[in-house]
Protein backbone atom coordinates (compact mmCIF):
# COMPACT_ATOMS: atom_id res chain seq x y z
CA UNK A 1 0.00 0.00 0.00
CA UNK A 2 1.53 3.31 -1.04
CA UNK A 3 1.53 6.11 1.52
CA UNK A 4 0.41 8.56 -1.10
CA UNK A 5 -1.74 7.51 -4.01
CA UNK A 6 -2.77 10.32 -6.37
CA UNK A 7 -5.04 9.06 -9.12
CA UNK A 8 -5.67 11.14 -12.23
CA UNK A 9 -5.64 14.41 -10.30
CA UNK A 10 -6.67 17.56 -12.15
CA UNK A 11 -7.06 21.09 -10.94
CA UNK A 12 -8.78 23.83 -12.88
CA UNK A 13 -8.87 27.44 -11.71
CA UNK A 14 -11.65 29.59 -13.04
CA UNK A 15 -10.92 33.29 -13.30
CA UNK A 16 -14.11 34.72 -14.72
CA UNK A 17 -14.46 33.23 -18.20
CA UNK A 18 -10.88 31.99 -18.37
CA UNK A 19 -10.03 28.46 -17.27
CA UNK A 20 -6.53 27.79 -16.01
CA UNK A 21 -5.57 24.12 -16.07
CA UNK A 22 -2.98 23.87 -13.34
CA UNK A 23 -2.99 20.09 -13.28
CA UNK A 24 -4.32 17.68 -15.87
CA UNK A 25 -4.48 13.98 -15.04
CA UNK A 26 -1.59 13.57 -12.64
CA UNK A 27 -1.13 10.10 -11.15
CA UNK A 28 1.63 9.38 -8.67
CA UNK A 29 2.30 6.82 -5.97
CA UNK A 30 4.79 7.49 -3.22
CA UNK A 31 5.77 4.89 -0.67
CA UNK A 32 6.80 5.27 2.93
CA UNK A 33 10.34 6.57 3.44
CA UNK A 34 10.81 7.88 -0.08
CA UNK A 35 12.66 11.12 -0.79
CA UNK A 36 11.10 12.65 -3.88
CA UNK A 37 12.14 15.79 -5.70
CA UNK A 38 9.38 17.47 -7.68
CA UNK A 39 10.87 19.48 -10.51
CA UNK A 40 9.73 21.52 -13.42
CA UNK A 41 9.62 25.07 -14.73
CA UNK A 42 7.72 27.81 -13.00
CA UNK A 43 3.98 27.55 -13.53
CA UNK A 44 4.07 23.85 -14.31
CA UNK A 45 1.78 23.00 -11.38
CA UNK A 46 4.26 21.85 -8.72
CA UNK A 47 2.87 24.01 -5.91
CA UNK A 48 -0.68 23.20 -6.87
CA UNK A 49 0.14 19.52 -6.64
CA UNK A 50 1.91 19.93 -3.30
CA UNK A 51 -1.06 21.83 -1.86
CA UNK A 52 -3.33 18.97 -2.84
CA UNK A 53 -0.93 16.41 -1.35
CA UNK A 54 -0.85 18.54 1.82
CA UNK A 55 -4.66 18.66 2.08
CA UNK A 56 -4.59 22.45 1.86
CA UNK A 57 -6.51 22.27 -1.39
CA UNK A 58 -8.85 19.84 -3.10
CA UNK A 59 -8.49 18.62 -6.68
CA UNK A 60 -11.28 19.38 -9.15
CA UNK A 61 -10.92 15.89 -10.63
CA UNK A 62 -9.42 12.55 -9.67
CA UNK A 63 -8.89 10.87 -6.34
CA UNK A 64 -6.29 11.31 -3.65
CA UNK A 65 -5.74 8.53 -1.13
CA UNK A 66 -3.54 9.28 1.85
CA UNK A 67 -2.81 6.13 3.84
CA UNK A 68 -5.83 4.65 2.03
CA UNK A 69 -8.14 7.43 3.18
CA UNK A 70 -10.01 9.22 0.40
CA UNK A 71 -9.21 12.78 1.34
CA UNK A 72 -11.82 14.18 -1.03
CA UNK A 73 -14.61 13.02 1.26
CA UNK A 74 -13.34 14.86 4.35
CA UNK A 75 -14.59 18.18 5.71
CA UNK A 76 -12.56 21.22 6.66
CA UNK A 77 -11.86 20.23 10.23
CA UNK A 78 -10.99 16.64 9.34
CA UNK A 79 -8.49 17.96 6.78
CA UNK A 80 -7.06 20.26 9.47
CA UNK A 81 -6.63 17.20 11.66
CA UNK A 82 -4.76 15.36 8.88
CA UNK A 83 -2.48 18.37 8.30
CA UNK A 84 -1.83 18.45 12.01
CA UNK A 85 -0.93 14.80 12.48
CA UNK A 86 0.25 13.46 9.12
CA UNK A 87 1.89 16.35 7.36
CA UNK A 88 4.66 18.79 8.12
CA UNK A 89 5.00 21.80 5.86
CA UNK A 90 8.20 23.61 5.05
CA UNK A 91 7.73 26.76 2.98
CA UNK A 92 10.02 28.83 0.86
CA UNK A 93 9.31 31.89 3.00
CA UNK A 94 9.63 29.93 6.31
CA UNK A 95 6.21 31.11 7.53
CA UNK A 96 7.11 31.38 11.19
CA UNK A 97 4.91 33.50 13.44
CA UNK A 98 6.60 36.83 14.09
CA UNK A 99 7.13 38.01 17.68
CA UNK A 100 6.92 34.39 18.77
CA UNK A 101 9.98 32.54 19.99
CA UNK A 102 11.48 29.63 18.06
CA UNK A 103 10.32 27.16 20.71
CA UNK A 104 6.78 28.53 20.70
CA UNK A 105 6.72 28.32 16.92
CA UNK A 106 7.76 24.70 17.16
CA UNK A 107 5.09 24.04 19.79
CA UNK A 108 2.38 25.43 17.53
CA UNK A 109 1.22 22.13 15.90
CA UNK A 110 0.90 20.57 19.34
CA UNK A 111 -1.37 23.42 20.48
CA UNK A 112 -4.00 22.05 18.15
CA UNK A 113 -3.42 18.50 19.29
CA UNK A 114 -4.27 18.79 22.98
CA UNK A 115 -0.86 18.07 24.51
CA UNK A 116 0.06 19.25 27.98
CA UNK A 117 2.30 22.31 28.24
CA UNK A 118 5.08 20.23 29.73
CA UNK A 119 4.95 17.65 26.94
CA UNK A 120 4.87 20.41 24.32
CA UNK A 121 7.97 22.02 25.73
CA UNK A 122 9.74 18.67 26.01
CA UNK A 123 9.03 17.65 22.42
CA UNK A 124 9.78 21.13 21.06
CA UNK A 125 13.21 21.00 22.71
CA UNK A 126 13.86 17.59 21.16
CA UNK A 127 12.84 18.85 17.73
CA UNK A 128 15.03 21.92 18.17
CA UNK A 129 17.90 19.60 19.02
CA UNK A 130 17.31 17.40 15.98
CA UNK A 131 17.67 20.40 13.63
CA UNK A 132 20.83 21.50 15.42
CA UNK A 133 19.52 24.69 17.01
CA UNK A 134 20.07 23.95 20.71
CA UNK A 135 20.11 27.13 22.73
CA UNK A 136 18.24 29.17 20.14
CA UNK A 137 14.79 28.35 21.50
CA UNK A 138 14.13 31.76 22.98
CA UNK A 139 15.15 33.66 19.85
CA UNK A 140 12.53 35.39 17.78
CA UNK A 141 12.47 34.71 14.02
CA UNK A 142 13.78 38.23 13.41
CA UNK A 143 16.86 37.34 15.47
CA UNK A 144 17.66 34.26 13.38
CA UNK A 145 19.33 33.88 9.98
CA UNK A 146 17.37 32.51 7.01
CA UNK A 147 18.94 29.08 7.41
CA UNK A 148 18.16 29.03 11.12
CA UNK A 149 14.58 30.11 10.50
CA UNK A 150 14.18 27.28 8.01
CA UNK A 151 15.55 24.86 10.60
CA UNK A 152 12.93 26.10 13.07
CA UNK A 153 10.29 25.52 10.38
CA UNK A 154 11.60 21.99 9.83
CA UNK A 155 11.53 21.34 13.58
CA UNK A 156 7.92 22.55 13.58
CA UNK A 157 7.16 20.10 10.74
CA UNK A 158 8.78 17.26 12.70
CA UNK A 159 7.39 17.89 16.14
CA UNK A 160 4.08 16.07 15.73
CA UNK A 161 5.91 13.01 14.31
CA UNK A 162 4.17 13.47 10.97
CA UNK A 163 5.11 10.71 8.49
CA UNK A 164 5.29 13.17 5.57
CA UNK A 165 7.20 16.38 5.09
CA UNK A 166 6.17 18.57 2.19
CA UNK A 167 8.70 21.24 1.30
CA UNK A 168 7.91 23.71 -1.47
CA UNK A 169 11.19 25.25 -2.59
CA UNK A 170 12.61 25.21 0.94
CA UNK A 171 15.96 26.54 -0.22
CA UNK A 172 14.57 29.16 -2.56
CA UNK A 173 15.41 32.00 -0.20
CA UNK A 174 18.77 30.66 0.95
CA UNK A 175 22.33 30.93 -0.34
CA UNK A 176 23.96 27.80 -1.75
CA UNK A 177 26.02 26.97 1.34
CA UNK A 178 22.98 27.21 3.64
CA UNK A 179 20.89 25.35 1.07
CA UNK A 180 23.34 22.47 1.17
CA UNK A 181 23.12 22.39 4.99
CA UNK A 182 19.33 22.29 4.88
CA UNK A 183 19.43 19.51 2.27
CA UNK A 184 21.85 17.53 4.43
CA UNK A 185 19.34 17.87 7.24
CA UNK A 186 16.55 16.51 5.04
CA UNK A 187 18.73 13.60 3.97
CA UNK A 188 19.56 12.87 7.59
CA UNK A 189 15.88 12.94 8.61
CA UNK A 190 14.92 10.72 5.67
CA UNK A 191 17.56 8.09 6.21
CA UNK A 192 17.48 8.24 9.99
CA UNK A 193 13.77 7.92 10.70
CA UNK A 194 11.87 6.81 7.61
CA UNK A 195 10.16 10.15 7.15
CA UNK A 196 8.79 10.57 3.64
CA UNK A 197 10.02 13.79 2.10
CA UNK A 198 8.56 15.43 -0.96
CA UNK A 199 10.45 18.49 -2.00
CA UNK A 200 9.84 20.97 -4.80
CA UNK A 201 12.82 22.54 -6.45
CA UNK A 202 13.90 23.68 -9.87
CA UNK A 203 17.60 23.36 -9.15
CA UNK A 204 19.20 20.10 -10.23
CA UNK A 205 21.88 20.24 -7.55
CA UNK A 206 19.18 20.40 -4.87
CA UNK A 207 17.27 17.59 -6.56
CA UNK A 208 20.44 15.55 -6.47
CA UNK A 209 19.95 14.94 -2.76
CA UNK A 210 16.77 12.99 -3.44
CA UNK A 211 16.28 9.37 -4.44
CA UNK A 212 13.59 9.96 -7.00
CA UNK A 213 12.84 12.88 -9.32
CA UNK A 214 9.41 13.66 -10.75
CA UNK A 215 9.31 16.26 -13.51
CA UNK A 216 6.27 18.41 -14.24
CA UNK A 217 5.49 20.31 -17.41
CA UNK A 218 2.26 22.21 -18.06
CA UNK A 219 0.36 20.39 -15.39
CA UNK A 220 1.45 16.87 -16.26
CA UNK A 221 4.20 14.55 -15.15
CA UNK A 222 6.70 14.12 -17.99
CA UNK A 223 9.25 11.94 -16.26
CA UNK A 224 9.62 9.93 -13.05
CA UNK A 225 13.12 8.59 -12.40
CA UNK A 226 14.53 6.62 -9.53
CA UNK A 227 18.25 7.12 -9.00
CA UNK A 228 20.59 4.22 -9.39
CA UNK A 229 21.75 2.72 -6.13
CA UNK A 230 18.84 3.90 -4.04
Amino acid at each position, binding site marked *: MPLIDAQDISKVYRLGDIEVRALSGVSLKIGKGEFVAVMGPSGSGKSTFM*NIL*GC*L*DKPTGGRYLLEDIDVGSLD*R*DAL*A*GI*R*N*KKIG*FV*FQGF*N*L*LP*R*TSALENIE*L*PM*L*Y*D*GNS*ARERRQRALEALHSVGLEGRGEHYPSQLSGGQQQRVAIA*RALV*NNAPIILADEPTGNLDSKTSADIMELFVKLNSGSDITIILVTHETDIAAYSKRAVKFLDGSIVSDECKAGS
Partner: protein
Amino acid sequence: MINLSSTLKISFRALWVNKMRSGLTMLGIIIGVGAVIAMLAVGTGASNRISEHISSMGSNLLIVLPGATTSGGVRMGSGTQPTLTTADAEAILRECPAVSNVAPVLNGVAQVVYGNQNWSTGIVGTTPDILTVRDWPLVSGRLFTYQDVRRATKVSLLGQSVAENLFGDMDPVGQIIRIKNIPFTVIGVLATKGQSPQGQDQDDTVIVPVTTAQKKLFGTTFPGMVRRIMVKAKSTEELLSAEKQIAELLRQRHRIGPKQENDFTVRNLTAFMQAAEESTKVMTILLGAIASVSLLVGGIGIMNIMLVSVTERTREIGIRMAIGARTWDIRLQFIIEALTLSLAGGIAGIIIGVAGSIILSMLAGWITIVSVFSVIIAFGFSGLVGVFFGFYPAYKASLLDPIDALRYE
Protein backbone atom coordinates in the same frame (compact mmCIF):
# COMPACT_ATOMS: atom_id res chain seq x y z
CA MET B 1 -10.40 19.33 21.04
CA ILE B 2 -9.66 22.91 21.79
CA ASN B 3 -6.82 23.79 24.08
CA LEU B 4 -8.24 26.69 26.09
CA SER B 5 -5.21 27.74 28.08
CA SER B 6 -3.02 27.96 24.99
CA THR B 7 -5.75 29.79 23.10
CA LEU B 8 -5.89 32.26 26.00
CA LYS B 9 -2.15 32.69 25.85
CA ILE B 10 -2.22 33.29 22.09
CA SER B 11 -4.94 35.91 22.52
CA PHE B 12 -3.23 37.74 25.38
CA ARG B 13 -0.01 37.86 23.44
CA ALA B 14 -1.71 39.34 20.39
CA LEU B 15 -3.31 42.04 22.56
CA TRP B 16 -0.08 42.74 24.40
CA VAL B 17 1.84 43.22 21.17
CA ASN B 18 -0.57 46.03 20.26
CA LYS B 19 -0.80 47.63 23.70
CA MET B 20 -1.70 51.12 22.51
CA ARG B 21 -4.37 49.88 20.15
CA SER B 22 -5.83 47.49 22.70
CA GLY B 23 -5.96 50.28 25.28
CA LEU B 24 -7.74 52.70 22.96
CA THR B 25 -10.21 50.03 21.94
CA MET B 26 -10.91 49.26 25.57
CA LEU B 27 -11.49 52.95 26.22
CA GLY B 28 -14.83 52.72 24.43
CA ILE B 29 -15.96 49.95 26.77
CA ILE B 30 -14.45 51.69 29.79
CA ILE B 31 -16.45 54.84 29.09
CA GLY B 32 -19.59 52.83 28.35
CA VAL B 33 -19.44 50.71 31.48
CA GLY B 34 -18.34 53.67 33.60
CA ALA B 35 -21.29 55.71 32.34
CA VAL B 36 -23.75 52.89 32.98
CA ILE B 37 -22.47 52.39 36.52
CA ALA B 38 -22.47 56.11 37.32
CA MET B 39 -25.92 56.75 35.82
CA LEU B 40 -27.43 53.78 37.63
CA ALA B 41 -25.77 54.97 40.83
CA VAL B 42 -27.37 58.40 40.47
CA GLY B 43 -30.76 56.86 39.73
CA THR B 44 -30.56 54.32 42.54
CA GLY B 45 -29.48 57.08 44.92
CA ALA B 46 -32.49 59.17 43.98
CA SER B 47 -35.00 56.36 44.34
CA ASN B 48 -33.47 55.23 47.62
CA ARG B 49 -33.88 58.74 48.93
CA ILE B 50 -37.53 58.65 48.03
CA SER B 51 -38.00 55.25 49.67
CA GLU B 52 -36.39 56.63 52.81
CA HIS B 53 -38.81 59.54 52.72
CA ILE B 54 -41.74 57.20 52.40
CA SER B 55 -40.69 55.26 55.45
CA SER B 56 -39.90 58.47 57.34
CA MET B 57 -43.42 59.70 56.68
CA GLY B 58 -44.83 56.58 58.24
CA SER B 59 -46.12 53.65 56.27
CA ASN B 60 -49.73 53.33 55.07
CA LEU B 61 -50.32 56.97 55.92
CA LEU B 62 -53.39 58.99 54.92
CA ILE B 63 -53.80 62.68 55.72
CA VAL B 64 -57.22 64.27 55.98
CA LEU B 65 -57.13 68.00 55.30
CA PRO B 66 -59.90 70.57 55.43
CA GLY B 67 -61.04 72.06 52.11
CA ALA B 68 -61.79 70.55 48.70
CA THR B 69 -59.19 69.33 46.26
CA THR B 70 -58.49 70.42 42.78
CA SER B 71 -56.26 68.29 40.63
CA GLY B 72 -53.37 70.64 41.35
CA GLY B 73 -53.58 70.54 45.10
CA VAL B 74 -55.66 71.85 47.96
CA ARG B 75 -58.01 74.81 47.90
CA MET B 76 -60.46 75.81 50.55
CA GLY B 77 -64.03 74.64 50.04
CA SER B 78 -66.05 77.69 49.02
CA GLY B 79 -68.21 79.15 51.77
CA THR B 80 -67.23 76.59 54.37
CA GLN B 81 -64.71 77.11 57.11
CA PRO B 82 -62.09 74.50 57.95
CA THR B 83 -64.24 71.87 59.47
CA LEU B 84 -62.21 69.00 60.87
CA THR B 85 -62.53 68.26 64.56
CA THR B 86 -61.17 65.84 67.14
CA ALA B 87 -64.63 64.26 67.06
CA ASP B 88 -64.13 63.49 63.36
CA ALA B 89 -60.88 61.80 64.26
CA GLU B 90 -62.53 59.70 66.95
CA ALA B 91 -65.32 58.76 64.55
CA ILE B 92 -62.83 57.65 61.89
CA LEU B 93 -61.09 55.35 64.33
CA ARG B 94 -64.42 54.00 65.58
CA GLU B 95 -66.21 53.50 62.28
CA CYS B 96 -63.67 52.87 59.55
CA PRO B 97 -62.63 49.19 59.76
CA ALA B 98 -59.61 49.65 57.47
CA VAL B 99 -58.08 52.19 59.86
CA SER B 100 -55.75 51.15 62.67
CA ASN B 101 -54.62 54.45 64.22
CA VAL B 102 -55.74 58.06 64.09
CA ALA B 103 -54.04 61.22 65.28
CA PRO B 104 -55.70 64.64 64.91
CA VAL B 105 -53.25 67.52 64.63
CA LEU B 106 -53.49 71.17 65.56
CA ASN B 107 -50.18 72.84 64.94
CA GLY B 108 -48.63 76.27 65.01
CA VAL B 109 -45.33 78.04 65.52
CA ALA B 110 -44.27 79.24 68.95
CA GLN B 111 -41.29 80.37 70.95
CA VAL B 112 -39.91 77.72 73.29
CA VAL B 113 -37.74 78.81 76.19
CA TYR B 114 -35.52 76.89 78.56
CA GLY B 115 -33.43 78.91 80.96
CA ASN B 116 -31.76 81.55 78.86
CA GLN B 117 -32.07 79.49 75.67
CA ASN B 118 -34.95 80.09 73.33
CA TRP B 119 -35.96 78.52 70.09
CA SER B 120 -38.78 79.10 67.65
CA THR B 121 -40.30 75.84 66.51
CA GLY B 122 -43.38 74.04 65.24
CA ILE B 123 -45.71 72.88 68.00
CA VAL B 124 -47.81 69.85 67.17
CA GLY B 125 -50.89 69.26 69.28
CA THR B 126 -52.01 65.65 68.81
CA THR B 127 -52.79 62.33 70.50
CA PRO B 128 -50.37 59.54 71.57
CA ASP B 129 -51.22 57.59 68.42
CA ILE B 130 -49.19 60.07 66.36
CA LEU B 131 -46.02 58.09 67.07
CA THR B 132 -47.57 54.89 65.75
CA VAL B 133 -49.02 56.67 62.74
CA ARG B 134 -45.68 58.20 61.86
CA ASP B 135 -43.56 55.17 62.87
CA TRP B 136 -41.64 57.45 65.18
CA PRO B 137 -40.15 56.01 68.37
CA LEU B 138 -39.00 57.79 71.53
CA VAL B 139 -35.38 57.60 72.57
CA SER B 140 -35.97 58.57 76.17
CA GLY B 141 -38.75 59.32 78.62
CA ARG B 142 -42.34 58.30 78.04
CA LEU B 143 -45.30 59.12 75.84
CA PHE B 144 -48.21 61.14 77.16
CA THR B 145 -51.49 59.26 77.64
CA TYR B 146 -55.10 59.69 76.55
CA GLN B 147 -55.72 60.81 80.10
CA ASP B 148 -53.24 63.65 79.48
CA VAL B 149 -55.26 64.47 76.37
CA ARG B 150 -58.55 64.49 78.26
CA ARG B 151 -57.11 66.68 81.00
CA ALA B 152 -55.13 68.91 78.64
CA THR B 153 -52.02 68.53 80.80
CA LYS B 154 -48.95 70.63 80.05
CA VAL B 155 -46.54 67.89 79.00
CA SER B 156 -44.33 67.82 75.90
CA LEU B 157 -42.18 65.57 73.71
CA LEU B 158 -39.14 67.20 72.09
CA GLY B 159 -37.78 66.53 68.62
CA GLN B 160 -34.01 65.97 68.45
CA SER B 161 -33.26 69.41 67.01
CA VAL B 162 -35.20 71.20 69.69
CA ALA B 163 -33.63 69.07 72.42
CA GLU B 164 -30.14 69.84 71.11
CA ASN B 165 -30.79 73.54 70.73
CA LEU B 166 -32.31 74.04 74.15
CA PHE B 167 -30.47 71.45 76.22
CA GLY B 168 -27.26 70.61 74.38
CA ASP B 169 -25.88 67.43 75.91
CA MET B 170 -28.19 67.60 78.91
CA ASP B 171 -31.11 65.16 79.34
CA PRO B 172 -34.28 67.23 78.86
CA VAL B 173 -36.64 64.66 80.45
CA GLY B 174 -38.17 66.08 83.62
CA GLN B 175 -37.15 69.67 82.84
CA ILE B 176 -39.63 72.50 82.51
CA ILE B 177 -39.74 74.50 79.29
CA ARG B 178 -41.97 77.48 78.48
CA ILE B 179 -44.08 77.57 75.34
CA LYS B 180 -45.74 80.92 74.79
CA ASN B 181 -44.67 81.57 78.37
CA ILE B 182 -46.67 78.60 79.66
CA PRO B 183 -44.61 76.00 81.57
CA PHE B 184 -44.57 72.49 80.10
CA THR B 185 -42.86 69.42 81.55
CA VAL B 186 -40.65 67.55 79.08
CA ILE B 187 -41.58 63.88 79.44
CA GLY B 188 -39.87 62.39 76.40
CA VAL B 189 -37.47 62.90 73.50
CA LEU B 190 -38.17 61.64 69.98
CA ALA B 191 -35.78 59.68 67.81
CA THR B 192 -34.09 61.41 64.90
CA LYS B 193 -36.36 61.50 61.84
CA GLY B 194 -34.40 63.55 59.33
CA GLN B 195 -35.71 65.66 56.50
CA SER B 196 -39.21 65.51 55.12
CA PRO B 197 -39.72 65.09 51.38
CA GLN B 198 -40.22 68.85 51.24
CA GLY B 199 -36.81 69.32 52.83
CA GLN B 200 -38.03 70.39 56.26
CA ASP B 201 -36.27 69.29 59.41
CA GLN B 202 -38.84 66.96 60.97
CA ASP B 203 -36.88 66.92 64.22
CA ASP B 204 -37.51 70.63 64.73
CA THR B 205 -40.78 70.05 66.57
CA VAL B 206 -42.44 69.81 69.97
CA ILE B 207 -45.40 67.48 70.49
CA VAL B 208 -48.08 68.29 73.08
CA PRO B 209 -51.58 66.87 73.75
CA VAL B 210 -54.04 68.19 71.17
CA THR B 211 -56.40 69.56 73.81
CA THR B 212 -53.58 71.52 75.41
CA ALA B 213 -52.77 73.05 72.02
CA GLN B 214 -56.42 73.91 71.45
CA LYS B 215 -57.12 75.39 74.85
CA LYS B 216 -53.82 76.90 75.97
CA LEU B 217 -51.62 77.58 72.95
CA PHE B 218 -53.46 78.37 69.72
CA GLY B 219 -57.16 78.57 70.49
CA THR B 220 -59.93 77.38 68.15
CA THR B 221 -62.55 79.11 66.00
CA PHE B 222 -64.98 76.30 66.85
CA PRO B 223 -64.84 73.55 69.45
CA GLY B 224 -62.43 70.71 68.83
CA MET B 225 -60.95 72.26 65.65
CA VAL B 226 -57.89 70.53 64.18
CA ARG B 227 -55.85 71.35 61.08
CA ARG B 228 -55.52 67.81 59.87
CA ILE B 229 -56.09 64.21 60.83
CA MET B 230 -53.31 61.70 60.33
CA VAL B 231 -54.57 58.18 59.68
CA LYS B 232 -52.75 54.87 59.50
CA ALA B 233 -54.44 52.15 57.48
CA LYS B 234 -54.25 48.56 58.68
CA SER B 235 -52.22 47.52 55.65
CA THR B 236 -51.07 48.76 52.28
CA GLU B 237 -53.82 46.74 50.63
CA GLU B 238 -56.42 48.49 52.77
CA LEU B 239 -55.16 52.01 52.03
CA LEU B 240 -57.70 52.59 49.29
CA SER B 241 -60.66 51.20 51.22
CA ALA B 242 -59.60 53.28 54.24
CA GLU B 243 -59.59 56.33 51.98
CA LYS B 244 -63.11 55.51 50.76
CA GLN B 245 -64.47 54.75 54.22
CA ILE B 246 -63.10 58.02 55.60
CA ALA B 247 -64.60 60.04 52.74
CA GLU B 248 -68.02 58.40 53.16
CA LEU B 249 -67.99 58.89 56.92
CA LEU B 250 -66.96 62.53 56.73
CA ARG B 251 -69.54 63.36 54.03
CA GLN B 252 -72.15 61.90 56.33
CA ARG B 253 -70.85 63.70 59.42
CA HIS B 254 -70.50 67.02 57.60
CA ARG B 255 -73.94 66.60 56.01
CA ILE B 256 -72.75 66.99 52.43
CA GLY B 257 -75.48 66.40 49.86
CA PRO B 258 -75.01 64.00 46.93
CA LYS B 259 -74.26 66.84 44.44
CA GLN B 260 -72.04 68.85 46.75
CA GLU B 261 -68.27 68.88 46.78
CA ASN B 262 -66.33 67.48 49.74
CA ASP B 263 -65.24 70.07 52.29
CA PHE B 264 -62.20 67.95 53.08
CA THR B 265 -59.47 66.09 51.22
CA VAL B 266 -58.00 62.67 51.90
CA ARG B 267 -54.43 62.52 50.69
CA ASN B 268 -52.71 59.24 50.11
CA LEU B 269 -49.05 60.16 50.54
CA THR B 270 -47.82 56.64 50.14
CA ALA B 271 -49.39 56.38 46.73
CA PHE B 272 -47.95 59.74 45.79
CA MET B 273 -44.48 58.78 46.95
CA GLN B 274 -44.72 55.41 45.29
CA ALA B 275 -45.53 57.14 42.05
CA ALA B 276 -42.49 59.36 42.55
CA GLU B 277 -40.39 56.31 43.27
CA GLU B 278 -41.73 54.62 40.18
CA SER B 279 -40.82 57.59 38.02
CA THR B 280 -37.29 57.71 39.40
CA LYS B 281 -36.98 54.07 38.54
CA VAL B 282 -38.04 54.83 35.00
CA MET B 283 -35.53 57.67 34.96
CA THR B 284 -32.82 55.29 36.18
CA ILE B 285 -33.59 52.86 33.42
CA LEU B 286 -33.55 55.66 30.88
CA LEU B 287 -30.21 56.97 32.11
CA GLY B 288 -28.84 53.45 32.03
CA ALA B 289 -30.18 52.92 28.53
CA ILE B 290 -28.60 56.13 27.27
CA ALA B 291 -25.31 55.16 28.89
CA SER B 292 -25.44 51.69 27.36
CA VAL B 293 -25.52 53.29 23.92
CA SER B 294 -21.91 54.27 24.56
CA LEU B 295 -21.24 50.68 25.55
CA LEU B 296 -22.65 49.65 22.20
CA VAL B 297 -20.39 52.16 20.45
CA GLY B 298 -17.50 50.65 22.39
CA GLY B 299 -18.53 47.24 21.09
CA ILE B 300 -18.50 48.50 17.52
CA GLY B 301 -15.00 49.81 18.21
CA ILE B 302 -13.96 46.32 19.26
CA MET B 303 -15.45 44.82 16.14
CA ASN B 304 -13.64 47.38 14.02
CA ILE B 305 -10.29 46.64 15.60
CA MET B 306 -10.85 42.91 15.43
CA LEU B 307 -11.62 43.15 11.71
CA VAL B 308 -8.40 45.11 11.18
CA SER B 309 -6.57 42.54 13.25
CA VAL B 310 -7.95 39.62 11.21
CA THR B 311 -6.86 41.29 7.99
CA GLU B 312 -3.42 42.12 9.34
CA ARG B 313 -2.93 38.60 10.58
CA THR B 314 -4.26 36.81 7.52
CA ARG B 315 -0.89 35.14 7.03
CA GLU B 316 -0.75 34.08 10.65
CA ILE B 317 -4.20 32.54 10.26
CA GLY B 318 -2.97 30.73 7.14
CA ILE B 319 0.03 29.34 9.01
CA ARG B 320 -2.16 28.17 11.87
CA MET B 321 -4.56 26.50 9.46
CA ALA B 322 -1.74 24.77 7.58
CA ILE B 323 -0.45 23.46 10.88
CA GLY B 324 -3.81 22.06 11.91
CA ALA B 325 -5.96 24.76 13.50
CA ARG B 326 -9.63 23.90 13.08
CA THR B 327 -12.52 26.27 12.54
CA TRP B 328 -13.21 26.75 16.24
CA ASP B 329 -9.54 27.05 17.17
CA ILE B 330 -9.37 30.13 14.97
CA ARG B 331 -12.76 31.45 16.05
CA LEU B 332 -12.05 31.05 19.73
CA GLN B 333 -8.74 32.80 19.39
CA PHE B 334 -10.38 35.94 18.05
CA ILE B 335 -13.46 35.74 20.26
CA ILE B 336 -11.26 35.44 23.32
CA GLU B 337 -9.29 38.44 22.14
CA ALA B 338 -12.46 40.47 21.80
CA LEU B 339 -13.75 39.15 25.12
CA THR B 340 -10.50 40.02 26.85
CA LEU B 341 -10.68 43.55 25.48
CA SER B 342 -14.28 44.00 26.57
CA LEU B 343 -13.96 42.37 30.00
CA ALA B 344 -10.76 44.22 30.86
CA GLY B 345 -12.51 47.37 29.69
CA GLY B 346 -15.49 46.34 31.79
CA ILE B 347 -13.42 45.99 34.95
CA ALA B 348 -11.68 49.31 34.36
CA GLY B 349 -15.07 50.84 33.58
CA ILE B 350 -16.50 49.59 36.87
CA ILE B 351 -13.63 51.20 38.74
CA ILE B 352 -14.08 54.45 36.79
CA GLY B 353 -17.85 54.31 37.28
CA VAL B 354 -17.58 53.82 41.04
CA ALA B 355 -14.99 56.59 41.31
CA GLY B 356 -17.17 58.79 39.10
CA SER B 357 -20.20 58.20 41.33
CA ILE B 358 -18.22 59.16 44.41
CA ILE B 359 -16.88 62.30 42.72
CA LEU B 360 -20.37 63.17 41.47
CA SER B 361 -21.86 62.89 44.93
CA MET B 362 -19.05 65.01 46.35
CA LEU B 363 -19.25 67.72 43.68
CA ALA B 364 -22.99 67.86 43.05
CA GLY B 365 -24.11 66.69 46.47
CA TRP B 366 -26.24 63.95 44.96
CA ILE B 367 -26.68 60.71 46.77
CA THR B 368 -25.26 57.98 44.56
CA ILE B 369 -25.51 54.29 45.31
CA VAL B 370 -23.53 51.76 43.26
CA SER B 371 -25.58 48.59 43.50
CA VAL B 372 -24.03 45.15 43.13
CA PHE B 373 -26.75 44.52 40.58
CA SER B 374 -25.57 47.37 38.34
CA VAL B 375 -21.97 46.15 38.56
CA ILE B 376 -22.98 42.62 37.59
CA ILE B 377 -25.20 43.92 34.79
CA ALA B 378 -22.48 46.21 33.41
CA PHE B 379 -19.84 43.50 33.57
CA GLY B 380 -22.11 40.92 32.02
CA PHE B 381 -23.15 43.33 29.35
CA SER B 382 -19.57 44.16 28.44
CA GLY B 383 -18.85 40.43 28.13
CA LEU B 384 -21.86 40.06 25.89
CA VAL B 385 -20.67 42.98 23.78
CA GLY B 386 -17.27 41.29 23.42
CA VAL B 387 -18.72 37.98 22.28
CA PHE B 388 -21.29 39.62 20.05
CA PHE B 389 -18.95 42.01 18.28
CA GLY B 390 -16.03 39.58 18.34
CA PHE B 391 -17.96 36.81 16.68
CA TYR B 392 -18.19 38.26 13.18
CA PRO B 393 -14.45 38.95 12.81
CA ALA B 394 -13.71 35.52 14.29
CA TYR B 395 -16.17 33.93 11.91
CA LYS B 396 -14.57 35.74 8.99
CA ALA B 397 -11.11 34.59 10.06
CA SER B 398 -12.21 30.97 10.35
CA LEU B 399 -13.60 30.94 6.81
CA LEU B 400 -10.38 32.08 5.15
CA ASP B 401 -8.94 29.75 2.56
CA PRO B 402 -5.64 28.43 3.93
CA ILE B 403 -3.77 28.80 0.63
CA ASP B 404 -4.99 32.34 0.02
CA ALA B 405 -4.20 33.22 3.62
CA LEU B 406 -0.69 31.80 3.36
CA ARG B 407 -0.05 33.76 0.17
CA TYR B 408 -1.35 37.04 1.71
CA GLU B 409 1.28 39.75 1.85
